[in-house]
């Protein structure tokens, strides 16, 4: 009985941990798969989402940083968590559009290394600007009151309500993106563009606008990840970079451009990580996910659900 409860708890925790990876990886994966753009600033979008979520949800006291030196004592508009959940994706969607138009577009035909350098630079600018303005200290991101505290589940017993919320929000969003990609003309164009963009254009379809929207959607998902992931830990300027590498790992393990792949891989990594932590091997949890990644990629270089063709 307790063993079963332990296993189920582990799976739910893994699902929750993986959910954040999935939200980040789905956006990253469709951008990489469709636009062949390596976006190292994806973590920065998560970071912006988290701070923006904090800003919208509550009022945060300022103790150091440039704003505090200017005599500003706090920031935030205190509209509550639901407001953040609605506003953040919209704002980050627009940030994504701007990023595509003014940064990414100029680098589509340039080598991956240039894309990595420019987006990584952008990520550092965002991160360090936040640190300079708001200070580097960690801010607690309160879970919404209606979703905090435990909920009694059958077999498992008490489980943090918010973790279930994270799983549910992720499931709804990823399902939405999946339906959009699988069942609309827009999605069909995006899928075909992933396979052979030039051929799509030869059919008379202009790809620049769908690509812009793809970028926006990917960004919005990263923003939401920041809002739902924020209350699981503290918010500080480093969290974007910390999430970036596991997110890329998820994309590569799942197969570039594959939403289902990102889901499977994200949940696998999350579950493994939680399993190692819960069995008292927290120190090995990072080693574990990279080792798993290495083994999978040795056996299937294109990722679990990736197509045989490579993406170069």
């Amino acid at each position, binding site marked *: 009985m307790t063993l079963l409860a332990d296993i189920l708890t582990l799976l739910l925790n893994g699902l929750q941990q993986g959910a954040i990876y999935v939200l980040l990886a789905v956006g990253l994966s469709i951008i990489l798969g469709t636009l062949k753009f390596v976006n190292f600033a994806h973590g920065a979008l998560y970071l912006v989402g988290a701070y923006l979520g904090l800003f919208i949800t509550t009022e945060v006291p300022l103790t150091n940083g440039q704003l505090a030196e200017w005599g500003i004592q706090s920031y935030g508009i205190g509209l509550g968590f639901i407001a953040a959940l609605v506003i953040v994706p919209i704002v980050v969607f627009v940030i994504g559009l701007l990023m595509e138009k003014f940064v990414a577009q100029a680098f589509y035909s340039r080598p991956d290394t240039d894309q990595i350098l420019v987006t990584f630079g952008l990520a550092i600018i965002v991160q360090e600007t936040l640190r300079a303005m708001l200070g580097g200290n960690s801010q607690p991101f309160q879970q919404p009151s209606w979703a905090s505290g435990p909920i009694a589940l059958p077999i498992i017993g008490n489980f943090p309500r918010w973790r279930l919320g994270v799983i549910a929000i992720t499931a709804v969003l990823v399902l939405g993106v999946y339906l959009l990609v699988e069942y609309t003309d827009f999605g069909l164009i995006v899928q075909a563009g992933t396979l052979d963009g030039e*051929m799509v254009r030869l059919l008379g379809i202009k790809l620049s606008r769908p690509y812009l929207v793809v970028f926006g959607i990917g960004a919005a998902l990263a923003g939401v990840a920041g809002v739902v992931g924020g209350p699981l830990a503290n918010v500080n300027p480093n969290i974007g970079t910390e999430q970036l590498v596991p997110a890329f790992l998820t994309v590569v393990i799942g197969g570039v451009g594959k939403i289902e792949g990102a889901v499977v891989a994200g949940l696998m990594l999350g579950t493994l990580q939680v399993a190692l932590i819960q069995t008292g091997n927290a120190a090995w949890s990072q080693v574990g996910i990279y080792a798993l990644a290495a083994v999978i990629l040795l056996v299937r270089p294109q990722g679990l659900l990736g197509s045989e063709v490579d993406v170069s």
Partner: protein
Amino acid sequence: MTLLEVEDINGYYGESHIIQDVSMNVDDGEITALLGRNGAGKTSTLRCISGATPPDVRSGSIRFDGTDITNAPPEDIAVRGVSLVPEERRVFTDLTVAENLHLAETVRNKSNTWGRNLDFRDEGMSTEEIYEYFPRLDERRSQKAGTLSGGEQQMLAIARALHQSTDLLMLDEPYEGLAPQIIESVENAIRRISEDGTTILLVEQNAIAAMKIADRCYVLDRGTVVFEGDAETLRNDQETRDRYLGV
């Protein structure tokens, strides 16, 4: 009447000058064949016409139906009525037959044009007509294109092009890698499309097969036109055939 007029174009891949002063005309309603050995510049010429880059056209002009389309983006050239069945077919292997075909008509739906103002001269073949033309594709509607045989993929690529707004159908090596009896059925399909009024520009290495159905021929060698004339003349010009086509 001349539908497509290519005048002295020069195309480059980076610094290499691969299309040199190529001129050719494709007349309305005819089958024009562009022949030559591997590497002669046939595919590059088609890419120039369809707006695909590289190569980039640095001089000369391409006019379609009286409008200058030199260096226009491929999506704009395509909606004017130029459709391409590319080398190696390039069907979307992970998508089904029906999805491959549906893609070709998405631009006709206003909600997919993203604000572009499109005015089609030709409506393209309807889905029903397509399946009537290619009954094999009808049977395989929900099958992934990647699982089709070479001949079926070729049919799908042609069907997809016809489903676009098509006044000029450009076929790049449609016989490549196909068994002789399949070549014959592709040949019959091309004949029928031509008889139904679509102008065709056929690029082939298989000169014998191409000469059989072409009205006019151009022969390319190392990026320049070395022969132009009707198919009958080329059939009897043994020297050109030996020298440039090896047949």
